[in-house]
């Protein structure tokens, strides 16, 4: 009877035991043979993802002899930040991952990112566009690198402006008075003056696209310490700048709820407040009629935004050398920048890479490069960026729909400051900066 039970037990258990033994053998063998780096990227357009997968394949091929490989996972844009947050909470961050530029300060504050200066020295740092290093440097240390940056300009249709009797903007762009006067003439000619893409669902569009209006008027969203908006966001200068911006809607120069995502390309609007991502499409639609100028400015000088997806290294990676090897690969001109920029049309991150792209000699691309090297500014570095952009974008939406500019900015200012004060008082941010 006993013996029978034992035999029975063995008969049931032998397969699981064998399988377990096999797993031990296999994992033991594989962990000796190869090192695998986990990386995460945002899911962009299909072409961009394809290019990224090809870059990974090329990296793995080049490093096969060393037994090193990279494993990439993509997550959709709108879930990406949540995914990072959950992984950080669970101590399950990948070795290297993409971050959205304005969130770098927050991740550094939470201790998620490793400084990269060891692997990207002065030679690299001066080769990157100044906007990228400025955005990525916190307390003097570099926390991210990138393969590309972004640019935002005012596209215009020469023929449509001429038909309305408007001369094209000068090389440094119009002032707001000139811009509004031009809009009035275009409107009088029966054409929608400018597309501002107010139906964009992401908050970030508003902060990215319209903070330059605030900057050009001499204002800021938040003080340089990244901890104070009171008296900064609802300043007299900002109220003046955003009142000018509101004029676009009150005078019917721009739609508050556009239905067409590309009215400029479809010949319904004479100007387009839009980014590098539309350049190719607009060139195809307009040819020589396409013009591009810096954004209209409240003060004397134009200002442009910048920033896009960057690459960072987890502070907790077990293999920083390998992670750095990947970061060097994906931000090198040959292996990373050329294929990615060909796929997504963004602005190359390295000055030395522009030689690979002859079109950067011509408009509108030449303007992208010029503004990133001279008058573009990164969005504010603050651990409270998410709160800031959320409330600022909500304020812009309401201002476009006719809210009182001063009152609405003060409301946003109060909400943001309360959040900053509360969290600072609770000491959730210790020894942050």
């Amino acid at each position, binding site marked *: 009877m006993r013996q029978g039970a034992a035999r029975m037990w063995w008969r049931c258990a032998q397969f699981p035991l064998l399988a377990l033994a096999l797993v031990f053998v296999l994992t033991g063998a594989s962990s000796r043979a190869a090192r695998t780096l986990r990386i995460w990227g945002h899911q962009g357009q299909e072409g961009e993802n394809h290019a990224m997968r090809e870059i990974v394949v090329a990296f793995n091929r080049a490093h096969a002899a060393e037994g090193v490989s990279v494993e990439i996972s993509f997550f959709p844009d709108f879930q990406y930040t949540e995914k990072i947050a959950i992984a950080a909470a669970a101590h399950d961050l990948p070795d290297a991952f993409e971050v959205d530029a304005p969130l770098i300060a927050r991740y550094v504050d*939470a201790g998620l990112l490793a400084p990269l200066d060891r692997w990207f020295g002065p030679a690299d740092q001066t080769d990157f566009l100044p906007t990228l290093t400025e955005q990525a440097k916190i307390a003097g240390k570099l926390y991210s690198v990138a393969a590309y940056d972004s640019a935002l300009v005012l596209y215009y249709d020469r023929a449509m402006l001429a038909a309305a009797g408007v001369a094209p903007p000068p090389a440094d762009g119009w002032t707001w008075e000139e811009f509004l006067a031009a809009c009035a003439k275009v409107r009088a000619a029966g054409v929608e003056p400018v597309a501002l893409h107010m139906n964009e669902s992401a908050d970030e569009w508003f902060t990215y696209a319209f903070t330059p209006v605030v900057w050009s008027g001499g204002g800021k969203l938040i003080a340089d310490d990244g901890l104070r908006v009171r008296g900064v966001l609802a300043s007299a200068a900002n109220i003046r700048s955003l009142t000018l911006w509101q004029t676009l809607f009150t005078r019917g120069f721009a739609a508050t709820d556009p239905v067409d995502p590309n009215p400029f390309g479809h010949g319904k609007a004479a100007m387009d407040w839009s980014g590098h991502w539309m350049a190719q499409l607009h060139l195809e639609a307009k040819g020589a009629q396409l013009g591009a100028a810096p954004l209209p400015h409240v003060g004397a000088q134009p200002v442009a935004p910048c920033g896009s997806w960057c690459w960072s290294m987890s502070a907790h990676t077990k293999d920083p050398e390998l992670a750095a090897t990947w970061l060097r690969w994906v931000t090198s001109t040959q292996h990373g920048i050329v294929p990615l920029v060909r796929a997504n049309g963004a602005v190359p991150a390295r000055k030395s890479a522009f030689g690979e792209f002859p079109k950067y000699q011509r408009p509108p691309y030449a303007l992208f490069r010029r503004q990133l090297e001279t008058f573009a500014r990164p969005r504010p570095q603050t651990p409270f960026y998410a709160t800031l952009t959320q409330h600022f974008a909500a304020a812009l939406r309401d201002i476009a729909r006719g809210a009182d500019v001063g009152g609405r900015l003060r409301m946003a200012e109060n909400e943001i400051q309360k959040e900053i004060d509360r969290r600072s008082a609770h000491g959730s941010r210790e020894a942050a900066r």
Partner: protein
Amino acid sequence: MTAWEKSRARAAPWFLLPALALLAVFVVWPMVRAAAWSFTSADLLAPERAHWLGAANYSELLTDARFRRAFGNTALFALMVVPVQTVVAFFLALWVNRPEPAWRWLRAVFFIPVIVSTPVLAVLWTLLYQPAQGEQMGLINAMVQAIGVPPQAWLRDPHLALPAIAFMSVWQGVGLQMMVFLAGLQAVPGELLEAARIDGAGAWGRVRHVIIPSVRNTIVFVVTVTTVLAFRIFVQPYLMTRGGPGRSTLSLIQSIYETTFLGQDLGRACAASFLFLIWVAFLTLLQRWIAGEERG
């Protein structure tokens, strides 16, 4: 107790164990963790960097203008939706409660919005509510204009946005409650209706004195479920207005979601979730208590 019964009693815990273990791991433990976090300043990106705050998260939430507004909006939304949706669903169910096949089609028509995905409907209704003049004007403004009311900026007017979303939600949800009422109506004894008719009760009399008492439990169920669902409103205002204009359509769930993933303030988000849980549990118990009392 026989030997067999004894061995059965001994075996019982082992059969319960898997279910209890799963419950403990996936329900009890996360709740305990969340409860613990709700008393700290835990940061979503670095939860271990938490300081004990006592009840500060709770007391701050109760006085926080944004959270209170979110609660007020959600309660107002429930007050608009629950009575209307229940009454309309009840009368729709009465109306379509006929055996002929043609009525089955009508039931399906009322039920369709329930199965269509909410984000799709949110986009559709945003277009329907479009305030612009001319060719871009939404259907709803075209309709109100036809009856002599000037077109409104439905989703942009702080006073109209929440009622507009409530209207859309009733339209979307009423089919489900109608189906529940239909099931309840099947249980109304035909003899009772027959007897009431012979006794001279009119249509309204039969509804009032026969049908409503017979479907009392269904009504309690529908009101409870609709209330809980109404308090969980999120997708429609999030997609249609982002909680705006101002804070006029900010829902409780949106405020908790934003605290978690935008503010990344885990402690406060946990506290808000517990307040929400306590409130919904209280409402459910209250409704059961009222219903039970009336029945007795």
